């Protein structure tokens, strides 16, 4: 497993702001090996979420190349967007676990059904789902609905969903951003424990330096926003 799980080269991304275009970052390159963890650091608005979205194909960079789990996405040439989108969808479905700060669960499904839905889409066995909830300490809440459990328990369920799909890469966007300090620490501990156990690669976006320290590599996007207008 010498090949990196994720390799990005010369990524740049701009957003339209009125008439001009604001660059979020440009010429950004990063690489992540299997089982490694990478922290994306930076203040709010520095482009962490945007970069995560590029890593899972939910957004397109203006330029650059992303190689992910052996699939190559070259944005330097125009066209082929439709084809790329299908490949991205396939990757997200089976190999990339994405987790947001909140609202990771379908509100109309019980916690267990949420996990089962995620596992079913990733074509993973459904029998493991209850076990995953138990490993995250919320086995007895399996039949509850998202609005019937606490925020921390919801994020644990979201973790169960991500791990139940047996991914090769996890993209977590401030997964504890809306939790209190203690709960946040507990949830992060679970995340790192399970990451170590399963050997999955992890990209974690956070503005919290203490959290970033727990990752092997840190990429600071602090100055990303000061890149100025794109040419």
């Amino acid at each position: 497993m010498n090949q990196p799980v994720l390799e990005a080269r010369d990524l740049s991304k701009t957003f339209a702001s009125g008439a001009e275009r604001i660059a979020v970052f440009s010429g950004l390159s990063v690489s992540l090996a299997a089982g490694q963890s990478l922290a994306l650091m930076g203040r709010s608005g520095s482009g962490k979420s945007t970069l995560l979205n590029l890593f899972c194909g939910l957004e397109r960079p203006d330029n650059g190349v992303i190689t992910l789990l052996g699939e190559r996405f070259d944005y330097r040439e125009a066209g082929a967007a439709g084809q790329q989108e299908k490949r991205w969808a396939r990757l997200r479905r089976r190999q990339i676990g994405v987790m947001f700060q909140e609202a990771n669960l379908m509100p109309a499904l019980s916690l267990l059904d949420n996990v089962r839905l995620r596992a079913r889409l990733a074509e993973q066995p459904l029998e493991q789902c209850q076990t995953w909830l138990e490993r995250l300490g919320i086995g007895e809440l399996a039949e509850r609905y998202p609005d019937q459990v606490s925020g921390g328990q919801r994020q644990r369920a979201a973790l169960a969903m991500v791990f139940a799909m047996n991914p090769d890469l996890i993209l977590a966007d401030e997964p504890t951003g809306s939790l209190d300090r203690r709960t946040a620490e507990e949830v992060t501990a679970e995340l790192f424990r399970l990451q170590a156990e399963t050997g999955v690669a992890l990209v974690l976006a956070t503005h919290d330096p203490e959290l970033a320290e727990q990752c092997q590599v840190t990429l600071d996007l602090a100055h990303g926003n000061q890149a100025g207008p794109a040419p």
Partner: protein
Amino acid sequence: MTLFAAVFSHYRRHPLQLAALALMILVATTLWSGVRQLTEQARTSLSQSEQVIAGREQVVRVDGAALTVSDFVTLRRAGLCVMPWLEVPRQGDVGLVIGVDPLAAACFGGAGGAFGNSQIRLEGEPFVDISEAARMARELPAAEPPPSLALIAAGEVTADAVPAGYRLADFSRGPDTGELGESFLLNLDALGILVLLITALLLRSVYRLGIVQRRDSFALLHRFGVPPAQIDRWLVVELLVLSALCILPGLWLGSWLAGLLGQGFGRSLEGLFDAPLYAAPGQWLAPAFTMMAVVLVACLADFLVPGAHRLAGSRGKGKLAGGFLVTGLVLALLSPSLVWVFVAVAIVFAGAGLLTPALINRLADRAADASADPLSRWRYRELAVMARQLALPVVALQFTLAMVLAIQALVTTFEDTFDRWLGQRLEAELYVAVPEGRSGEAAARWLTSQPELQTSGVWHRVIRGRGSVSVSGSAPTPVDLFALSPVSSLVTSWDLLDAEDDPWATLTRGEGVLVNEQLARRLELGVGDRIALEVAGQQLNLPISGVYADYGRPAGEILISGALLPEQFRPDFESFSITPGTLTRAELIRGLEAVWQVSGMTVRDNEEIRALATGVFDQTFLLTRAMTVLTLTLAALALLVMGWVFFTGRNWYFRLLATWGLSRREVAAQLTRLSVGLTGSVALLALPLGIWLTWVLVHRINPLAFGWSLPMAVYPGFWVELIGLSLLIGLGIALLMGRQLRAGAALPVSASSLTGGER
């Protein structure tokens, strides 16, 4: 930012919602005020046409013959104050004109041509000089019975003063349809209320949605120290301003709509009740205030009545709905009067409205529990949420679909029945009216002597006049009398509503009569009952051997054999129905012209008459059809808007599916299955309600309101069309939503504090 701006800022961000709200108020006002204006016009016309003749007496001949100018001369010579009165239908237009003779009216007392109760002023000026009326009468198509002259007696004329051979009688224009007229108006009122109800429901759903979305900003304002009562006041002001802006153009559009539909409506009023439609002055103030009150109540009911919202969502809702349904169904079956039938319909609709969202919700939840596949389980759960959150527009759509289905069934059944009925009535190829002053008898003799006609053709003679019927000594009821001689095979194929074994043979032998449905219902007559029939002063006592359907005319009719007519009977009108066979039309006409010594007479063929009758029929249902189509459009639009807004609120969760690796097309497919699943189940649930409503219309409301009934028929082809339409609405929602998805999604506003409304 002022408080006002803060309250309004919501609509600045959601201009479409404001537009939808404004549109709802506008369309609701248009539809309701349109129906209302027509109803008011009908009400005024019916009461005016009663007033015109109320309390008047006329002089008639004892032998029942039609009055002529010589009768007028005789009476005036005897010193009686009478005035000629000639009613003529307007050609190519709606309504009657009444020809009076101002000179003759001079003896009525009171100056300036006023006669009797001079306070009668009719909009539309139906009174014209009698010479003008006579001219119009001459221009009438010959197939229409010529208008008959009446002689109105002045108030001081007493029974003793009337010379021999004449008597005083109440002046009545047509048959007594008093209660039918009331029922007809009630029907119109019900249509108006139904339209108002559905539109209010839609209005409420759009408005509530805005309120739910604004709850957060209201809470914020509250935290800034604005008392909730003040926010409520602002909401009321906001609504008042909005409704004032939309109601006035709505009223204007409503009167435009009423004008558009007035022609056909006038025809149907005239056809049903012989009452012309007079123009009524448009009202503005009362409808505007009513509409404003409806808007306020529909939108702010839970503000104004604290605790009203608790009614929804209570556990006992199912029981309540069940109770409503049972009560309504039983009431509809048993109620003796039209008002109670309408109450029953309202109760059943209320029950269905409570039940439907709960039922879809329950069924979807069941299906979710039963499905092993997590994705379809998710879909069913979403459907359940939708059914609850979109309860109001869903129920409005269900009501509308049911109404459309029922009215379509009624109109189509009527169309088919009427068509078949008309076919039977128009069995003969040609219809020849006997010219004024000529003998029908001579023509009948000539026809009998034509060997070709005897072998290859069929004919009969219809003699029309007036008579009166009484049952076991009751007061006599005037009827239109139709005497047939001979009773030909042109009539024996009629479908009878009820009959003894061979009613036509009995009729031919002169041992029985046939009556129309209206008369049978009015006098509660059935086959075998004996009636006393007075014709030209002679009394006939005969059993009823059959009841025939008669659509359109309110008059009681009686069919007898021509052989029973007494010598002194003077017909109002005579005609021949002829299928000439090998005798050519030209030969026939030449022969009859020779018999009557006239050149040129009126011969109509059945196609011509059919076209006339069908035209009148189509006009009759124009109003109902237009109303249902407009309401359906409105309901569809409302669900479209509401569904779209609902999905916008859940946009994030559909994005979640995309994040989990469903392609854009797959997400769109899930969306489509959801919205189509909802509108499809609404359509399915509308079916039983619609079929029941059809039954009520056909078997309860129609006989009570119009005096005749129809066979009940269902049209599954139309069901398929309606279901198809619902699916199209669902597709529309999915399409709108698919576009929204592409624009990306923000985190749901309340994601961190799930309220439970999400599931």
